[in-house]
């Protein structure tokens, strides 16, 4: 009877689904991938291993034991200390738009949860919120979560995804670099592990602060990681840069990243490392 029910189901749908609902095209190698397969593969291309950027909630699902995540500092939001406006209008409007679009109040979500049973403090940046830029709210949440880790004697994991400091909060954004690093200095003083996970992209003021001072540096395959932008460097040195410049793989070769870990293996790798650090 199964065939009978099935045909009834199809008949009940007003239209057959559009092809875009069934498959997507890999943004990198352009291969066609069934959407189910893409989701099941955690938005990683099976063929070229391109890792699509994830939302912070998707990251929680991928990394933490189901139902263990508790959000912290949820009330901390963006600020407009400079009353900044550019040619496209006030920053405040743009920030509100980004809040509505993402359901977030800042470019990072923070909290605590478990990785294969090991309790951790975690900060997850989300590129959708103003390019994951580092601003006052971001810095404050990262700092508060470090202090939480110290109070509860937990390891700290930060997933970076950011174009750098947010210009709209000017010097206040720049000061989030020393601010977050000062918090991590306290974490070090407390002898607690800090794992930095660099995802695409980790650049500018984020790479030049908390992302680069981890005990362990892990990157997702092919993530863009660097300080200055490619175009600025090419203009400065008047030379073309190699294709793989500032990729995660390039950074491993130059000694700044410990390992590249595929998204599907990240959780298990984290718990393995945390055990070496004495966490349980």
């Amino acid at each position, binding site marked *: 009877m199964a065939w009978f029910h099935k045909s009834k189901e199809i008949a009940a749908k007003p239209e057959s689904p559009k092809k875009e609902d069934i498959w997507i095209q890999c943004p990198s190698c352009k291969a066609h991938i069934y959407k189910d397969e893409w989701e099941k593969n955690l938005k990683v291309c099976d063929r070229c291993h391109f890792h699509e950027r994830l939302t912070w909630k998707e990251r929680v699902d991928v990394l933490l034991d189901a139902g263990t995540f508790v959000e912290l500092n949820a009330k901390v939001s963006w600020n407009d200390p400079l009353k900044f406006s550019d040619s496209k209008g006030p920053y405040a409007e743009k920030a509100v738009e980004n809040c509505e679009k993402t359901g977030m109040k800042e470019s990072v979500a923070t909290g605590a949860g478990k990785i294969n049973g090991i309790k951790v403090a975690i900060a997850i940046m989300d590129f959708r919120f103003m390019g994951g830029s580092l601003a006052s709210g971001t810095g404050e949440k990262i700092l508060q979560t470090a202090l939480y880790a110290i109070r509860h004697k937990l390891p700290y994991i930060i997933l970076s995804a950011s174009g750098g400091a947010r210009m709209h909060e000017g*010097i206040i954004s720049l000061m989030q670099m020393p601010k977050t690093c000062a918090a991590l200095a306290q974490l070090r003083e407390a002898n607690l592990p800090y794992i930095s996970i660099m995802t695409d992209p980790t650049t500018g003021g984020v790479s030049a602060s908390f992302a680069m001072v981890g005990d362990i540096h892990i990157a997702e395959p092919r993530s863009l990681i660097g300080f200055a932008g490619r175009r600025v460097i090419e203009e400065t040195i008047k030379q073309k840069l190699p294709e793989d410049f500032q990729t995660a793989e390039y950074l491993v070769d130059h000694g700044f990243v410990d390992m590249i870990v595929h998204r599907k293996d990240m959780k298990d790798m984290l718990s393995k490392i945390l055990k070496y650090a004495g966490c349980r």
Partner: protein
Amino acid sequence: MSLDFEKDVAEIESRIEEFKAKNPEPTGTLVKELNRFEMERADKLKEIYANLTPWQTVQVARHPERPLIRDFISGLCSEFIELHGDRLFGDDRGMIGGFATIENHRVMVIGHQKGKDLDEKIKCNFGQACPEGYRKALRLMKLAEKFHIPVVTFIDTPGAFPGRDAEERGQAEAIARNLLEMAALKTPVIAVVTGEGGSGGAIGIGVGDVVLMLSNAVYSVISPEGCASILWRDGTKAAEAANALKITAKSLLQLKIIDEIIPEPVGGAHRDFVTTMKTTKKVLLKHLTSLKKVSPRKLTSRRFDKFAAMGRFN
């Protein structure tokens, strides 16, 4: 060299020159007339510098004759023993440092060097330090900690060098490491923004217990030109971006990013090195004396609180 907005002053100055050429040894009413010219010049300069826009301040901060770190060292210190190298890769001429004596204080001086003439500018990359510069700075800071002497940094950079080699040797890591280590450094740190405080390149030696700024210096997350080309999609809108970014000493004092402004003589530091040094020295000595009384433990905890409070609004 006079700046765009100093046209009126330049005009008076050329009149003075002309007058002096005509009257090599003025007497009587001619002296009076010359004095009147000089007064007029001083008033005009005062008027212009009292109303500098943020973008004009950028021009002053970047003035080719502005005092550079070597001027500050020779103007403030009775002794300077330069130290070289990061012990890892090389010696960055864009970041210099060494033991120095300011009155009765032995300190470690560290700072960006832009260079005076073209040869020197090229050697020190126009004050854009490389990873080895930041690592040299850190080595000297750790040395200062070991010897229990305060660190005084002079910040004057367009930004950290955006080059291929700098990236490959870990520009981001070098700056990040300094931020973390400076936060934990168990010796007093005074940072002085003397010219351009260019983003990560500036803060990489800028985590101070006290952060001072010369009155015509600027300090920003990005250059006004860079900001304009990204947010305005037009690099020529730099003046607007400079306004929006709040980069002047006055704004930064209001935002509690800096602790004190070191006033420059009328017409900017480049017009009067002697007065600039005298004022800078006075302010530095005041803070050196008071910071020396604070225990290392208290220093680091106060430093943490200071930076933790930046950008905390609720």
